[in-house]
């Protein structure tokens, strides 16, 4: 997983409550064998018109927000079905940080699992960040994870909370797998012990 330290990027505002995982990626795109490449389906129902062409009014279809890496929304982001495809689609679109007054639980966890930083900030602060984000190509926010602050375009710093363990995982780019692999020595010791105690344990080899 990519490390997350500081991110200075364009932010896009989606001023809506309850943006559910079906809005983030509709169910019909789930019969896939991949977790990458889902970015083109992100926000499908808002991004495209019924004939399949881009909706020019939708913020993520406009410059400079086409390249947004930060998303600011209202309450309960990521509610609905627990599909892990939602963070996969956001990440593939290029989003690394989502800011909202509140998040749905599983979505919140799945963001961390996939290297996306979810930041919970009060609604009035989200309003300020949304208005910052309208300042065209000056719409850049900086997320400083080590210092736990969001830096607004005028230099004002907004502090945020994060679980220390999750912060560590993001800073080091560790997913659950990376975390477990930090116990590699213990796993190796265990494997040697079993080899010694149960040498008859067969392996599976086919020609």
């Amino acid at each position, binding site marked *: 997983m990519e490390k997350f330290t500081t991110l200075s990027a364009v932010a896009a505002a989606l001023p809506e409550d309850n943006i559910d995982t079906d809005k983030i990626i509709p169910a019909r795109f789930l019969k896939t064998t991949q977790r990458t490449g889902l970015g083109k389906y992100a926000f499908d129902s808002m991004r495209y018109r019924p004939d399949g062409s881009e909706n020019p009014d939708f913020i993520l279809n406009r410059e400079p927000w086409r390249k947004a890496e930060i998303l600011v929304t209202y309450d309960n982001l990521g509610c609905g079905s627990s599909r892990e495809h939602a963070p996969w689609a956001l990440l593939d679109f290029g989003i690394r940080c989502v800011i909202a007054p509140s998040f749905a639980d599983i979505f919140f966890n799945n963001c961390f699992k996939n290297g996306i930083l979810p930041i919970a900030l009060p609604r009035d602060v989200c309003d300020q960040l949304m208005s910052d984000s309208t300042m065209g190509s000056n719409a850049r926010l900086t997320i400083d994870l080590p210092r736990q602050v969001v830096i607004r375009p005028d230099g004002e710093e907004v502090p945020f909370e994060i679980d220390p363990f999750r912060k560590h995982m993001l800073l080091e780019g560790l997913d659950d797998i990376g975390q*477990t692999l930090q116990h590699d020595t213990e796993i190796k010791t265990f494997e040697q012990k079993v080899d010694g105690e149960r040498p*008859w344990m067969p392996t599976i080899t086919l020609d």
Partner: protein
Amino acid sequence: MVPRTLFDKIWDHHVVETLPDGTSILYIDRHLLHEVTSPQAFEGLRLAGRRLRHPEMTMAVVDHNVPTSDRTQPIEEPESRNQIETLERNVKEFGVPYFPLLSASQGIVHVVGPEQGISLPGMTIVCGDSHTSTHGAMGALAFGIGTSEVEHVMATQTILQRPAKNMRVTVEGQLAPGVSAKDVMLSIIGHIGTAGGTGYVIEFAGSAIRGLDMAGRMTICNMSIEAGARAGLVAPDDTTFDYVRNRPFAPKGEGFEHAVTFWRTLVTDEGAHFDKDVALRAEDIAPSLTWGTSPETVLPITGNVPDPAQEPDESKRAQMQRMLDYMGLEAGQKIAGTPVDVVFIGSCTNSRIEDLRAAAQVAAGRKVADGVRAMIVPGSGLVKRQAEEEGLDQIFLDAGFEWREAGCSMCLGMNPDKLTPGQRCASTSNRNFEGRQGPGGRTHLLSPAMAAAAAVTGCLTDARELV
């Protein structure tokens, strides 16, 4: 030392380390893969530049999506074909032992594992499929996992887990003639309910369980999930060891003897604590089946469909009525005699040679009733071959059954074998949810003998009348 349950022992043998928050890094001995839940996990490995830690402890097979008709033709459904081709590319790239579609050993992952001696007593076994509990019949701790966890096991050969609670279901006594393992398990689920095992690993014990052959024990453990449990297991004994001996991937020669010495220690200690203990008497169990769209809606074949009017709880009453409407049944009607359209004998619950023998015993010398489609789908290519050597295929074909290739088939609506809306199916599988066997399909779960009886009479029938 504190007396331990079988589950406690297998758990303790596999804890690499317990983390401060109480989660354990649990070592996994066998990781089984199929085409539906593995692709994103392989992709995750590739993206992170990781390899499989132990491909030689991993096995892959195609089962969910495969057609069970003519295999020489290309697979028609593009999504199924894509998943199968993706698995084939992945096993090659990552060096995973694989039973391809045209191999004689191909079959349902939960049939293939034990049959090949890949699943052995005392092991931890995982697969991205809930019915992994089947392998618990070997005296192993076996459970289903999600896609992120599949990737975690691939990369680390471990999983992050908290211990489950211990539950014991004891069935003492002698099963009546014509009562099978499926009837026992349906009765257990009917008794404890689909949430009865939530949070538990169930050990099945008692003389009636010990008297079952391995196929019967697999049927029981298979449906632990339908009882809400994380896993089910049966302590390994001579029946288990005789089954394992000489399987292709089992330990050989002296190694086997050492293994058996160790496996004999895998029993629950006298006085070990169970958080929940349930007992059934074997004599009370009749040939059974489900009438509704939840596996706990169990009824003896001699019984009547329940009447919602008798149910005091309003929400339960409404739910029962919904089930009756969906299933096209009348409150209080006798269940025997209900006409069926389709009979499905197969799935990881009941597709082993013993199951096919039980069905053949009923089918022999009879004909599938007019207007009924009856299919036999062996659990693996090896089961199919064995059945053909015993002449069972001829019995079925003479009676008018379809004799098909191995796979999940009509257990789930994912391949061409599907029910159409309103069709009623007597099925040896494990789930009867709305639409499970195809949109609008009506499923009655029952044993192979009862399924065969439904096929030859055209309606739900007490198989004991036919043998």
